């Protein structure tokens, strides 16, 4: 079995978000880039599946320029066997999925994070599944291999389900899929550069959406404080002033 983990390169989650060019582009000056947190959990689960046996290879793939390679190498340091970088700046989710569809055909299981923490698209995994005509399950919080099938926990609106589904499968994973992202061991860090990182040329594709501009949320009014000894007052305020009770 071969597993592909989709890796998105995103700004560190503590980044203070700023825009430039009259709010038309994200200001990446001084930004530290990390593996998208959900993708990192997906990779961790892939490693666990491999350690449990039955997985021959874990590949990580990313669409982006050379500057995203440290992120892929971190994934290699964590334990992926090889990496693919489609050499083109990522545009929208459709464009990214089109590029990935070219390199993802031969995998039995594709793990994608439910969203990326930058554009919150919730899209690439599902789009890729459709392009490849693979089965897909979203909101996956657990997955294991069961012969030629997969046993999957998914969250539904109002509960959770335990499923059995045939591959090839795109599992779109969320919190719970693995406990914590793995910290790469030094041996892994040293080996990362020796593992294959294949750079693939982009295919011709057009994005279907474009970002016109950005807005920052309006600054919040000061917090109205209520005295600890008179906490009941809070309920009155919520009822009469804020009208949310």
């Amino acid at each position, binding site marked *: 079995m071969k597993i592909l983990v989709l890796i998105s390169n995103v700004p560190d989650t503590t980044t203070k978000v700023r825009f430039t060019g009259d709010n038309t582009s994200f200001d990446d000056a001084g930004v530290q880039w990390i593996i998208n947190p959900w993708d990192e959990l997906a990779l961790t689960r892939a490693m666990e599946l491999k350690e449990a046996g039955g997985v021959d290879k874990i590949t990580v793939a990313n669409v982006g320029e050379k500057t995203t390679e440290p992120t892929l190498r971190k994934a290699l340091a964590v334990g992926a066997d090889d990496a693919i970088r489609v050499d083109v700046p990522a545009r929208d989710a459709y464009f990214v999925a089109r590029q990935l569809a070219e390199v993802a055909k031969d995998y039995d299981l594709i793990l994608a994070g439910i969203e990326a923490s930058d554009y919150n698209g919730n899209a690439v995994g599902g789009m890729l599944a459709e392009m490849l005509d693979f089965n897909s399950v979203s909101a996956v919080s657990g997955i294991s291999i069961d012969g030629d099938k997969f046993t999957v926990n998914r969250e539904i609106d109002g509960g959770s389900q335990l*499923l059995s589904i045939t591959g090839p499968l795109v599992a779109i994973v969320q919190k719970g899929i693995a406990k914590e992202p793995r910290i790469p061991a030094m041996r892994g860090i040293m080996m990362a550069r020796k593992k294959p990182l294949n750079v693939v040329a982009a295919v011709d594709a057009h994005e279907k*959406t474009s970002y016109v501009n950005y807005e920052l949320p309006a600054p919040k009014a000061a917090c109205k404080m209520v005295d600890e000894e008179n906490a009941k007052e809070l309920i009155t305020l919520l009822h009469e002033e804020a009208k949310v009770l």
Partner: protein
Amino acid sequence: MSILVYTENWDGKFKKLSFELVSYAAAIAKEMDSSVTALSVGEVADDELNKLANYGASKVLKLEDNRFGSLDNKALSKAIAAAANKEGAKVVVFAHDNLGKALAPRVSVKLDAGLVSGATALPSSFDPFVIKKKVFTGKAFANVQINADIKVVTLSQNSFELAETAGTATIEAFDAAADDADFNTVVNETNKITGKVLLNDAEIVVSGGRGMKSGDNWGGLEELADLLGAGMACSRPVSDEGWRSHTEHVGQTGKIIAPNLYFAFGISGAIQHLGGVSSSKVIVAINKDPEAPIFEAADYGIVGDVFKVLPQLIDAVKAM
């Protein structure tokens, strides 16, 4: 041409969320000189389907095929795309919930459409079609233009007001002509959360953090939530410690919620946590540390001991 809205049901019933979606689709239809068709999959009684008309649906397609009960993403997307084609839909609207997030991307590819997920408002313009959504996990908004003929949108919860209209809808059976081979998902077990308000539906959310000190101290929060009909949530350290289930974790890597009222008890308000709750209409913070960043995000706050404040709040709610 029409606006198609996928209305999910829960044991044959719709929720407020379903009506929000129809209201939203109706507002779009008005601007585009179009009409709203709702697609309902599963067994829903006609009088329940008719409720969709009260929010602007003029046609309801009902697809009653038990095989779709497994929510097989591939089969369901195919059926929805078929309905969109049949109706000549220019816009397809989904909820930005688990199922909507699962289906919208597949449907958008099938229809060769452009997708915006997590829209927070009506399109600000229709030609070009520009719509606002949250980015950077609530830290900013983006105006996204869809450059495709067909548009697929998932709508964030609580971002559009219900708009009732007097209307009737024609109900039409829809046969998706699905092939058995399309269904590859077998549900072995379903665990429904019962007797509790679902976090994603909740208008009010009561949430606890590390300041609750231990997993044994949740009684007060649960009591308050019960009284308010609120959903329960927690911060990441709480679910990491195993004090509460990870399904209750709200924050950047957990659930993103947008209730009308969010109570944060003993939550310091790390930026990752705020990312998951900042869209709440009103945030209330109770924390003993006056410097806790949660107070920067809160509308109302109490600096004090959670365990002293909680009983007072419970009494006050009981007295309401």
